[in-house]
């Protein structure tokens, strides 16, 4: 498996607090069956501003330690950018790195507030030949209120990355229900753990995996956790099927 979303680098954001914790997390990931990890620490203007160069140095240093310890796992550069009016510029001038050496850009939206320019950002990224990936759509209030908007994002050319743990209701039952609907509509393209600390999600991966396989089958699970991420690593385009209509639910 390939983990598309982690906060595994030490002291860069609200994720791992030290190199010791980072190494612990990586070992947990390795035992859980991951061979590749994208280190997608936050990039939030004014708060977490480690640029591409910094991240490259830090990843290389950690990779050296892994090689020394003969842990067969590869770290790849990345970032979880926080949507803003200047985000596209920062990607363009290579302050915010893409995933690996690809054209894929992972970004997140505010969890609680509604914003009106997501499609504008998607269009601008695509016009510049980037491929946008939106992190954990199931967790956003605006998606929970109006799930159909993700279809607009996908049609505009964005791909969606869901969090492993959402299927277990870790982010609330609303997030879980939305995730199930998005999976059913074929609107999820990647899974990531969004791990922020050791002793956490990596220890439960086999449970989560079972739940996903029950919902979408083994083959689809492999596409989300290996085939599609592999395409990102190799900077190849992913064949995206037109998502199905999202089933409405009277509860909302």
């Amino acid at each position: 498996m390939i983990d598309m979303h982690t906060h595994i680098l030490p002291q860069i954001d609200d994720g791992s607090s030290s190199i010791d914790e980072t190494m612990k997390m990586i070992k947990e990931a390795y035992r859980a069956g991951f061979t590749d990890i994208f280190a997608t620490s936050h990039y939030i203007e004014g708060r977490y501003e480690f640029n591409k160069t910094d991240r490259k140095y830090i990843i290389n240093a950690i990779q050296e330690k892994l090689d020394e310890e003969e842990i067969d796992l590869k770290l790849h550069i990345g970032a979880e950018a926080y949507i803003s009016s200047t985000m596209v510029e920062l990607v363009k001038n290579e302050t915010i790195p893409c995933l690996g050496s690809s054209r894929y850009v992972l970004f997140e939206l505010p969890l609680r507030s509604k914003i009106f320019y997501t499609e504008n950002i998607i269009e601008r990224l695509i016009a510049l030949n980037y491929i946008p990936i939106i992190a954990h759509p199931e967790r956003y209030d605006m998606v929970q209120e109006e799930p159909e908007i993700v279809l607009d994002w996908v049609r505009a050319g964005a791909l969606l990355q869901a969090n492993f743990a959402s299927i277990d209701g870790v982010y609330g039952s609303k997030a879980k229900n939305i995730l199930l609907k998005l999976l059913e509509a074929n609107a999820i393209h990647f899974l990531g753990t969004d791990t922020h600390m050791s002793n956490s999600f990596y220890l439960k991966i086999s449970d989560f995996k079972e739940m996903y396989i029950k919902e979408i089958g083994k083959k689809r699970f492999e596409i989300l956790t290996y085939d599609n991420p592999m395409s990102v690593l190799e900077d190849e385009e992913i064949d995206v099927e037109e998502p199905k209509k999202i089933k409405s639910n009277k509860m909302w």
Partner: protein
Amino acid sequence: MKKELITQTDPKSPISEVFRALRTNLQFMNKSNGCQTILVTSTVQSEGKSWISANLAAAFAQSGSRILLIDADMRKPRQHKIFQQKNTPGLSNYLSGINEYGKRQDLDIYDCIQSTEVDDLYLLPSGNIPPNPSELLLSNKTEKLIKEASKNFDVILFDGAPCLLVTDSTIISSMVQSTILVTSYKYTKIDDLKDAKKRIRKVGGNIVGVVLNRIEISSKKYENKYYYASNSSTPATIPQRKSKKIDLEDEEHITKKQDREIDDYIEEKVADTEKQIQDAIKENKKYKEKVDVPSDKAKDILKSINGYK
């Protein structure tokens, strides 16, 4: 700095997140690339407009915009209290030409503007309480003020008096690009809101959105979903107030005069931008010649990684 300036004192809180979203929504509406002028007003008192203005201003400053916050509520000023600054000399002194000691004196706006504890956020306090705020605002000095400040600031944000009580804010709304109406959940009357909208539209003001303040959110919902890591042991504090943008309308009703002003800004900015591009090209060359080196903060992290085991 007072605690109510939450965007600054607690940038990670979900309330701060809402302010940043509001800011970015506004940034996207600024099509001219020039200085953006915004008025925040409300229908009546106590809907939270000063609190919203202060925090919105801080959110702008955090994004690197140089912002001038003008306390244009000359009847019941509050910004100087939020930022713990003195209130004089201020807007009324500048507009009236009477200084804080009651003597005639033509002040420059920069005599009245104060820097604050928030980087890039500058405050023009309201000044001594004048007998005739509306008249003062009607003088051509207000437009001169905007023009003058536009040269030095990316955003000018007015905290205006409630617009149903007095005409102050209606006057300002005709001079700025965007007006935001603050309403309070279960407090603002819908007819008042309609009335306010009518008054602002009548003078050619451009209402770009309504902020609904003081929405109740349950603590459960908050705890469930705010923290990134669900097994975080940090207890969540329950926010008292939350603002949410609920409505946006297309840009319209820009008066001819504002139109001309915007054109002027664009021209000025095009010249500026050309210069910036030239500078950037030079800068970029320098950058390319330099080998990529990690920042000092990254160096510290690298040291700890290299010391592992």
